[in-house]
């Protein structure tokens, strides 16, 4: 295959994949309107996505917060701004790292498992069995997983941010001797309610993208154990890329929104 043909094929594959994702998401939206899942189906998935993810989100959040404190202190102390470390840690966690970290954890822990589970169901004809028993696979399998990711990720993000901030505060005050008063004062000054809302909105977008990608990969899974493994890997890789792309797009959008609100005389900073 010539390089030009290979590039062309790659572009075509990407367009087909994107089209399939959009069609899949559209069908999902239809079912979200038509029929909500039963509690018996939804609760276990909410528990699995939300409660079971808390320990891993806490551990990673804690370490990220502590690492941020170490790295920020090193830089800020050279400029004698170390007392403002709280603003750096809080701002970074609330605006960027908290939502992205929780989303990456969700994509790795839950998204891959979803793709593998649905893929296994496809390979073992359980999805056909659902159809044969009068249940739509999108309504029965995808809608509850979508809702679980969409609703649980803001809570996970808040937890990751809270634990991360605690880790940052602990290292700053107990290791580097920064005053707790300065830590919280600067945190309050540089992190606004708008940042928190933006972070939550971001996390919901990430959650929706993870659920759609993971379930779509599961439904398009190839045959056998190899196909299931590939679906799980593709789900994580595609979700990770989607998280970064959405993060970039929403960062640009939020800055434009701040400017627009400022022009309208509303200050959110």
């Amino acid at each position: 295959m010539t390089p030009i043909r290979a590039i062309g094929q790659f572009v075509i594959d990407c367009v087909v994949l994107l089209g399939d994702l959009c069609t899949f998401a559209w069908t999902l939206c239809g079912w979200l309107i038509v029929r909500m899942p039963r509690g018996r189906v939804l609760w276990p998935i909410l528990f699995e996505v939300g409660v079971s993810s808390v320990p891993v989100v806490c551990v990673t959040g804690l370490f990220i917060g502590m690492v941020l404190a170490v790295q920020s202190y090193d830089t800020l102390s050279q400029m004698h701004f170390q007392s403002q470390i709280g603003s750096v840690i809080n701002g970074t966690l609330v605006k960027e790292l908290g939502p992205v970290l929780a989303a990456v954890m969700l994509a790795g822990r839950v998204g891959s498992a979803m793709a593998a589970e649905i893929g296994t169901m496809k390979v073992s004809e359980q999805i056909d069995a659902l159809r044969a028993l009068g249940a739509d696979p999108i309504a029965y399998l995808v809608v509850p997983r979508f809702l679980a990711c969409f609703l649980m990720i803001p809570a996970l993000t808040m937890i990751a941010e809270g634990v991360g901030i605690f880790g940052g505060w602990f290292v700053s005050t107990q290791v580097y001797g920064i005053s707790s008063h300065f830590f919280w004062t600067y945190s309050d000054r540089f992190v606004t309610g708008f940042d928190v809302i933006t972070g939550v909105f971001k996390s919901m977008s990430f959650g929706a993208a993870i659920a759609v990608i993971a379930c779509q990969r599961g439904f398009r899974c190839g045959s056998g154990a190899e196909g299931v493994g590939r679906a799980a890997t593709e789900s994580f890789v595609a979700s990770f890329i989607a998280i970064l792309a959405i993060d970039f797009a929403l960062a640009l959008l939020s800055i434009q929104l701040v400017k627009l609100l400022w022009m309208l005389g509303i200050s959110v900073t």
Partner: protein
Amino acid sequence: MMLSMTSCRDTAAPESLAANDVITSELSRVSQSFGSQQVLRDLSLEVRRGETLVLIGESGCGKSVTTKLLAGLLAPTSGDVLWEGRLVRNRRPAEVQRDRLKMGYLFQGAALFDSLNVFENIAFGLRENTQMREPQIREIVLDRLREVGLPETVREKRPSDLSGGMKKRVGLARALAMSPQIMFYDEPTTGLDPVMSGVINELILQTQKQRQVTSVVVTHDMTTVREVADRVIMFYSLGKLEPHEPQIVFEGSNQELFASDDPRIVQFVRGLPASRRLHQTSEAAGKTT
């Protein structure tokens, strides 16, 4: 030897239904491809109410795909699927969903839902599609378990705790829970020991007899063919056929199948490797001359 000892079933349709020879599911000039691989080509077949139709043929020739098309679980690449003489693609999704509930499907590996226990698996269709109360559902589930010869104690077990034969029986109980009018059995005895195969064949016959359901059975098991078939259709792989040759190489009763001298049918029925078939065919040709 064992095959010859097994008694052939009467090929006539059940008396009560013979007069009502209405097509229930039909494929009209259907072709099916997966990517670049074509599995079915210009295939037409019908399933008549009350009959037990058995589909045979070597692995990969499209038997399971055909049953999925007949059951509306797969959309054909080209051609039409008709239920009660009406095109499935012209029906509203809700109507297709409703009519699909009249069909039960026993999948090759039973396809039990791993996350649910036996009771929940059998109750699934009732919970999803009816307004029945739990006591009523419980009664039906336990009835179906008894019908397939399983003790009540299995109801709390997970599919992973069941043997192959038990899985098939739970799969059958799940399919029967919705009281279907047509039953599809995809290789119901594959992977089972001869005793359990006999039990499953008996269950197919019992279901057909007690419930008067139409049955479509995909199998490689000649005992199943002898015991349950009213009509047999044999498929051939497209890769071994000329472009103009039809994919169905045999259609008739089980007695006609076993009496056939078509080398392709003889090879399949007797389970001869390709090399022995060629040898046998040349021997037969020698005798003729």
